[in-house]
């Protein structure tokens, strides 16, 4: 198992945002996570990637390391990369610097070498820069490398965030609504790029997405959250027909008598 959680819980005051979730993810899988707003999808990401601390009793394991309550940068060093729903682009940095900052965990030289400006730093930097330019051309942003990230369009920003997350060559990539706000054509294009990157880097993916077509078409397995609990898990087809899932999204299915009662009021 690449990622494993046991009894994962998190409460904010009285609200149980995540309630005893057991989650297992094998290597090379594409896992979709769906659920209504406020069901705990993003909380799950934040807990796993170390942005939030978990409640006592929780356990998270990633690639053989116990990462329960480990600091976020440590988890990233183990090879877990993620994107954010609100993108969190480095607005005032150039596109190239955005991607290069994603390379941080792989930088081979030590800090002291950088202070005294040894030649090998500039050689390494040149290699990093070339590699990152390749990545930018792959997602189609090479021409924009020198511009500030704030000058990109919405679709380009999504691509940049993706490239930045890939730059660290992660084992597991967690995408928080990668296609939110994109037009259908752009969604297809983005998903194509994501799949190409998956093959190229041998990634395991977790995707939170509200566009069900994306989830149903690309994911091997789908996990459904509601009210901080895992209510269903299985292949896209299984999940689609699951009563609990339908209930969570559309409300309870009523029989004739219940319907009559409800309307009589």
């Amino acid at each position, binding site marked *: 198992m690449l990622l494993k959680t046991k009894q994962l819980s998190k409460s904010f005051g009285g609200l149980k945002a995540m309630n005893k979730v057991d989650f297992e993810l094998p290597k090379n899988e594409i896992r979709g996570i769906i659920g209504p707003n406020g069901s705990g999808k993003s909380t799950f990401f934040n807990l796993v*990637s*170390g*942005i939030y601390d978990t409640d006592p009793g929780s356990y998270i394991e990633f690639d053989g390391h116990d990462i329960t309550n480990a*600091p*976020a*940068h440590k988890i*990233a*060093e183990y090879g877990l*990369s*993620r994107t*954010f729903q609100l993108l*969190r*682009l*480095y*607005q*005032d*940095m150039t596109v190239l*610097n955005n991607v*290069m*900052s*994603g*390379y*941080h*965990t792989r*930088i081979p*030289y030590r*800090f002291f070498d*950088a*202070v*005294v*400006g040894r*030649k090998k*730093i*500039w*050689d390494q*930097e040149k290699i*990093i820069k070339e590699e990152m330019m390749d990545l930018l051309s792959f997602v189609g942003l090479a*021409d*924009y490398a*020198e*511009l500030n990230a704030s*000058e990109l369009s919405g679709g380009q920003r999504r691509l940049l965030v993706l490239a*930045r997350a890939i730059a*660290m060559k992660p084992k597991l990539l967690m995408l928080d609504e990668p296609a939110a706000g994109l037009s259908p054509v752009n969604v297809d294009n983005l998903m194509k790029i994501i799949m190409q990157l998956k093959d190229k880097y041998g990634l395991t993916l977790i995707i939170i997405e509200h566009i069900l077509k994306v989830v149903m078409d690309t994911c091997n397995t789908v996990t459904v959250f509601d009210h901080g609990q895992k209510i269903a898990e299985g292949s896209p087809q299984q999940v689609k027909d699951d009563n609990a899932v339908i209930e969570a999204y559309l409300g309870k299915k009523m029989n004739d008598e219940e319907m009559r009662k409800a309307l009589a009021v």
Partner: protein
Amino acid sequence: MDKFKQIIADYPFIAFIIAFGILALLPPFVLTDVYQSHLASLIFVNIIVAAGLNIVKGYCGQVTVGHVGLFAVGSYTAGTLFLYMGMGFWVTLPIAIIVTAFFGVAMGIPSFRLEGPYLALATLGGGEAIRLFIENGNFFRSTFGISDIPAPSLFGYNFDTPDRYYFISMTIMIIAVYFSFSILRSGVGRAFMSIREDPICAAAAGINVKKYKILAFILSAMFAGAAGAVYAHLPPGYIHPNNYTVIEMVTFLAMVVLGGLGHIWGGIIGAIVITIVYDLTRPLYKYQLLIFGLTIIFTILFMPKGIGGFIDRYFITKRFKAKTGAEKNVT
């Protein structure tokens, strides 16, 4: 020409040696009297401070208003070491840098919890506390100041006049700027920038936010300490608590903002411009602070990345147009 550019890109220190050579040959042509040599040394001191401030403020985004306190620590470490132990410049300089680094840690710890204006208030308190501590302690000669701090000598040659001291301040400035250049161009500079832009995302990308924040404070404190020591030994070698007030801090901030926050040459450009303007407007001393305040405000409003960013912008837009065709206009 291209080959030369390639060599500079591979060995950036060559550019700094060339700059050193030019600056070493300059005095007979440009600095016609003693006062101008003195002013040149002041510019170099300001460049060192501003380059350091650019690391913590411009790159790492931590709003510190106590930097002048660190500058004072550097000066007074050098001053007191001379006063009580008779130490010379070559000993006081490294000690001042180390001592100031420790004060930098103390100044940086609040940044774990505070940001923006709150951090500014905390560091302002720190900086002023240092000044008041000096001003009210007999150990530091309180308001008399420490005088007659000797200029350094090397192999029997005394750098005891402003036109000779020029070479000391200039050499240290070149070394300091080289270090700041190396730090900011490498992955460390990128880590600083990521923290400035979004600490949460930086942490998720594998950057140890606390470590790099404190690192930024330590590095910039070391610059301030070096500048303080150079300033203390500057002939006639007199330091007084009044040289380290908030007004000086505003001047340092104005340098970094005008030169370009987060631009690699920002602090340097700003230090040169502001020090010269400051000197030329001495007859209007009543309005100087007003002018600097307005400079900061107008720069932030109309040129948020300062002079350095403005120049960069021009070339980037030009290159982008050349690459993608002129009809596509950016911004």
